[in-house]
Structure formats: C-alpha cells, structure tokens
C-alpha cells in the first residue's frame, strides 16, 4: 500500500488520480499507523517552506517520515515535499527541513540570468548526470524528456545526490536520491505520460 502524507498542505486530488491511472490506490493519511504499514510513502507539498515544515512538526509527522525512511522504505518528496527532505530552507528566513538529503533550499533568482522569469514555470527537459548510472526512478523515461515545473526555490549543495537537473540558465536540481529517499522538484502528476512513468518506477522500487 502506498501512503500520501496528509499534513494539511496542498491539494492531493491530482496526485491520487495520477496514481490511480497507473493502477495504484493510495491512502491519503496523517495517521502514524497507516504510514507505518505502508510499503512506500509520498511526501507532497505546495506553499512556503517554513509553513510546511512547521505543519509537519506540529503534527509529529516529521518524526514519522524520518523513522519510516530509516527503515529503508521508499520515500518520494514532490515539489515542496522534495525541498523538505533537505537540511534547511532559506525561504522567508531559515527553517529546518527533515535532513534526509544533505544540502539546502535557496532562491533561484540570484543564480539565473536577469531576463529569466521567476517562478520557473513550464515544461523543461531532464538531464541525467554523466558520471553515474541513471537512477531507477527514471528507468522508464529517457534523458531529455520534459516534465512540468513550478518553483522559485531549488535544492543546492547536493551534487552527490543529484539524479537529474534542468537547464534554466544554470543546471538546477530537478531530482535527488539518497538510498531509499527520492525527491523531485517537478510535478510528476502533471507531467503527462513521462510523469506517470516516473511514478510507476517509484512504485516498483
């Protein structure tokens, strides 16, 4: 059973529908026992880093997610859910994340050319790092396939765990992985068949 962590942040309608489309019924839950029983977990999220991190802590789900991840259960953070995996975020002040991926979350504005727009919204091509094997998360897609992004902050100082980037001036972190913990900056549930293929690969881990 796949569980989507419900901590009161964001709209999970599209995500549950996209999983259903690949034949996976997901439990949307904030219940510790259900998360413990799940064989894999998705951590979604939209909005600001600080608010979401606080909501996770207030519900105690930060500890639950860390504990389940420590038991080698596949975990996938999506968009802000991916950013929350990092050590900390610098959106409206410094806020601690889950510390599952070393690195931090910083604004994209200072690192992109002046005429590039923020947020980075739209379909962009995924690039895989040349110096390592392609992540199992991408086993059903190809280098250069496009996915849908909407974000103003990005994960950085995480080269060692970067499994995909997207060019927006510089190459920005598009996906990370560390052992059983995965994170994607883009929205697989809004990325057409490519996105569904990524979700399918996660469900096969």
């Amino acid at each position, binding site marked *: 059973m796949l569980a989507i962590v419900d901590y009161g942040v964001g709209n999970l309608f599209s995500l549950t529908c996209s999983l259903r489309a690949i034949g996976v019924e997901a439990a949307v839950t904030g219940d510790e026992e259900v998360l413990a029983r799940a064989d894999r977990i998705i951590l979604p999220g939209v909005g600001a880093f600080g608010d979401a991190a606080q909501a996770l802590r207030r519900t105690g789900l930060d500890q639950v997610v860390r504990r389940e991840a420590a038991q080698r259960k596949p975990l996938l953070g999506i968009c802000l859910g991916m950013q929350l995996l990092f050590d900390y975020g610098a959106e409206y002040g410094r806020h601690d994340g889950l510390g599952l991926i070393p690195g931090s979350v910083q604004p994209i504005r200072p690192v992109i050319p002046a005429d590039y727009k923020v947020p980075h*919204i*739209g*379909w962009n091509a995924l690039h895989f790092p040349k110096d390592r094997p392609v992540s199992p998360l991408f086993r059903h897609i190809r280098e250069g396939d496009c996915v849908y992004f909407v974000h103003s902050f990005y994960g950085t100082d995480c080269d060692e765990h970067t499994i995909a980037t997207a060019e927006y001036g510089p190459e920005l972190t598009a996906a990370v992985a560390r052992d059983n913990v995965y994170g994607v900056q883009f929205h697989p549930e809004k990325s057409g068949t490519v996105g569904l293929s990524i979700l399918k690969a996660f469900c096969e881990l």
Partner: protein
Amino acid sequence: MITKRIIPCLDVKDGRVVKGVNFQGLADVSSPVELAKYYSSCGADELVFYDITASAEGRALFTDILREAASSVFIPLTVGGGIRTVDDFDRVLKCGADKVSVNSGAIRDPSLIPQAAKRYGDQCVVLSVDAKRVDGRFRVFAKGGREDTGIDAIEWIRAGVKNGAGEIVLNSIDTDGVKGGFDLEMLQAVCDVVDVPVIASGGAGCIQDFVDLFQALPKVDAGLAASIFHFGEVKIPALKKALAVEGIPTRL
C-alpha cells in the same frame, strides 16, 4: 531549456465545449472531457477550461466535468469564468485545477488578486485580460468583451502583477476570431512591463502565426487558441514539429 507552451482553450457551457467567433455565435464542438484527453494525448502542454455558464446548475455541471477531466488528464489545468471570490478559487482547485484565471471578477473587486495570491501563491493566480484598441490606447473590456471598462490595459496588467498575478493571458479582441495572427503589438506592450509569463491569445489562424509569435516576441511563453484546434485547422503535433524545425524550444 524551458519550452514554449501550446494551450488549447475549452469554453464550456452547459457541459459542452463551444467557441465564439469574436465572442458571438456559439457553435457546439465536443465533449470537454473527451477533447481534453485528445489534446493531452497529442501534446498540448496545458489546458484552459473556461466556464461560460451563468446558471447554478450549469456551474455544478462544470465542476463535475472538471473533476472528471482532472482524473484522466495529467497536464496542468487552468480554470476561468465566473471566478469572483476566493471561495470560487477553492471550489475549482478542489476539483483538480492547478491555476485559476480571473477576469471580470478582478475588475469588480481588484482585491481578489492579492487575496487569492496570499492564500494559494502567485503561481496559482492567472490574470486574464480582454483588451481592445480605443483612441490609440489598449483598453480593458469586461463581460466577455462586450463592455468597455475605460481602464488602461497596460496599467491594469502592471498593477495585477504587482498585486500577485503570476501569469497573464492577454486576449486581443481586435485580432480574436480574425485568424490573421496574434496581436504582436499589444503583446509587446505587455511584455515590456511585466516579468511573469505572458500567454498570447486571440488571432491564431495557422501554424505560421505561432512561429511568428515566438520568433517576434521571445518573452511570450505560450500561445493559446480554441477553434483552430477544435476544428482541426491546426493540429498540435504538426504545430510543435514546425516550432522545433524553427529552433523554438518545444516539448515533442
């Protein structure tokens, strides 16, 4: 590299897709859900569902259709039409919309944009503007293009972005339905004053019009059209191939 987006717009009334020519003379085209699936399968980058229903029953039917479309189409969906309050945002976002477009609702109550942006984020709020030349200026029109508000379109858009609109859809009434190309002059004037994505609407008649749009105005992020897609005059795979041949970044 970020790609240019191609966006079919589905005007929905009483559960069916319609398209006006210069906003008049509606003609039934097809089922919104079937059309949405079709467009998604042939490479549309995003879809706009525009609710032009007036009645409460029609509105309920629209949200049912939206929910069904969002359950079977996995690309971004923008919803517009009849969005007057933050509760309207809530209603369509719960049914699977990713972005919500405001037009007359923001003219009636300009605080709608900052309120919605604060609650859902700038990226969720699309300011859609119907504009037309009046005495050498671009003027905002309301009520589906029938009523001159007297508001200067460029100032209106500048203020909207400052208040939290994360994206602009500029529909030129002057070129809408004419199929003679997008209104490059009006779009240029808007691109000059905002730094959020600009979506061009109104006037596309053939593939070349999209090529001209993106070549003339690199700051335009997307091209939106309705009837030329609905009637198959422009096929999205051929359009995207033509853009790629011209070196315009596109998702194939």
